């Protein structure tokens, strides 16, 4: 079960939706919405320092000020610097295969989801995270190559 999730999206409608769908199926989930990707990045750094990272970051790609790709690049170097792990799932309205390929290059990205968010998507992601966090040792090699 997801307990803490950040949603990063420049579109207030998408934030409203993702938040509501998320809490609909994960009743105890604490979700925070970030319309400003910079703020989300700052918060993640702070969380890393206090050891309170979210279980998952849902990230939009097509944002005018800082694109999702730029966010991933910056988060990647933060993660390298602090030797922390952070799971990101892309949540985008894009159905562009190129975007999908580009995201797959980032080691942070555990899934590429096409909006709107559904329960089965959340289910798959929860399973993927449990698998990664469970039997595997906490630092997976190759994870730091963004």
């Amino acid at each position, binding site marked *: 079960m997801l307990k803490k999730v950040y949603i990063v999206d*420049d579109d207030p409608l998408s934030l409203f939706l993702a938040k*509501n*769908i998320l809490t609909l199926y994960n009743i105890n989930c604490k979700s925070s919405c970030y319309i400003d990707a910079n703020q989300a990045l700052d918060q993640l750094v702070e969380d890393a320092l206090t050891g309170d990272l979210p279980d998952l970051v849902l990230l939009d790609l097509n*944002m005018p000020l800082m694109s999702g790709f730029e966010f991933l690049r910056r988060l990647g170097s933060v993660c390298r610097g602090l030797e922390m792990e952070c799971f990101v799932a892309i949540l985008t309205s894009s*159905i562009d295969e190129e975007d999908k390929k580009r995201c797959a290059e980032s080691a942070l990205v555990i899934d590429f989801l096409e909006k*709107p968010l559904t329960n089965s998507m959340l289910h798959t992601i929860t399973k993927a995270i449990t698998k990664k966090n469970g039997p595997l040792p906490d630092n997976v090699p190759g994870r730091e190559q963004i």
Partner: protein
Amino acid sequence: MGHNIQNSTDEARKKVLREFENLNMALFHNHPDAIYMLDLEGRFLMVNEVVCQVSGVGRELLLGSSFEPLIHLKYRASTIESFEMAIRESPQRYETAVITPEGIKYLDVTNFPFRSGDQVLAVFGIAKDITEKRQKEVELREQKALLEVVHEEVEIFRKVIAHDLRKPVANALGFARLLKEGVLAADEETEAKCLLLGTVEALDTMVRDLNKVMALRSKGEMAQEKVEVLKAVSELLISFESEINNIKASISVHVDPGLHLLTVKAYFYSILRNLIANALKYHAQGHLPEITIKAWPREGSKLAISVGDNGIGMDMEAVADRLFKMHTRFAPHMAEGSGLGLYIVNQQVKLLNGTVTVSSEPGIGSEFTVCLPLN
């Protein structure tokens, strides 16, 4: 030549020579290309019928006069140089153009010296009319350039569909599913319904914009008509009345009552509508929006019209080269932009042979100035 025909009688030798001359003349006259002989000053000594046809000048006028005045000014120097090289050195092949009553014709010319012993007596010339070939090449190049543009636009269209158009569809789907679950609290449900409506409206705007872009591509020659600038501005402002009231914007208009231009009315209105809509949409929080619309005549029989605002503005260094492209949005926290508005403005201004310029600063505002020919 006579030396080669040994042991012949005088009569037989003369006959062969005559036949050979006849053959030469037949070749000269019936050859499909223009054939001519020039003296060392460039005056025509002999011309075949094709020379007259290509140049559109009669044989009597051509004979004894120089080739130079026939040559297009742009090619004159290079043609004379090639002609002189043919006298001094070796055969020359070059392209040139002649001015004829039927217009400019392009020629592929070969010049070589006509010698007797060491002495050059004249310059022989063969000119092939390559006008049609050249035109086809130009057309081909134009077609290719056009195809490249179309190809690029198709790719952008694909991107618009994959990203921009997909976005409101995804949102609408999300809202509809959320509402179907029937688990929202009453106030949340009302909000979700309003948001669903807004999303579908945004989708509608985008589909209409896309159609407009398509229409710009497939447009024929549009009829021009007289447009009164002040009347156009007033009419457009009335259509924006509710938006203006909603954000309490103050609008000042500085347009001389008599100012008018001859233009494609639909484009002119569309350009202004887009600019005013942007000025209203991207207003800043914290102070009341002020929008200034000005129009004035400009040198070179042009009309300038500007729409300025004190809105959120843009960082021009960051956005300048992408501002008028399809599929770009700059304003943060504004999901409703289709990313097509300024692209459409730019295309329409181009079609009207005008220009559009922008000055903008974040937190200060933006000013778009369109310059159009008065007629």
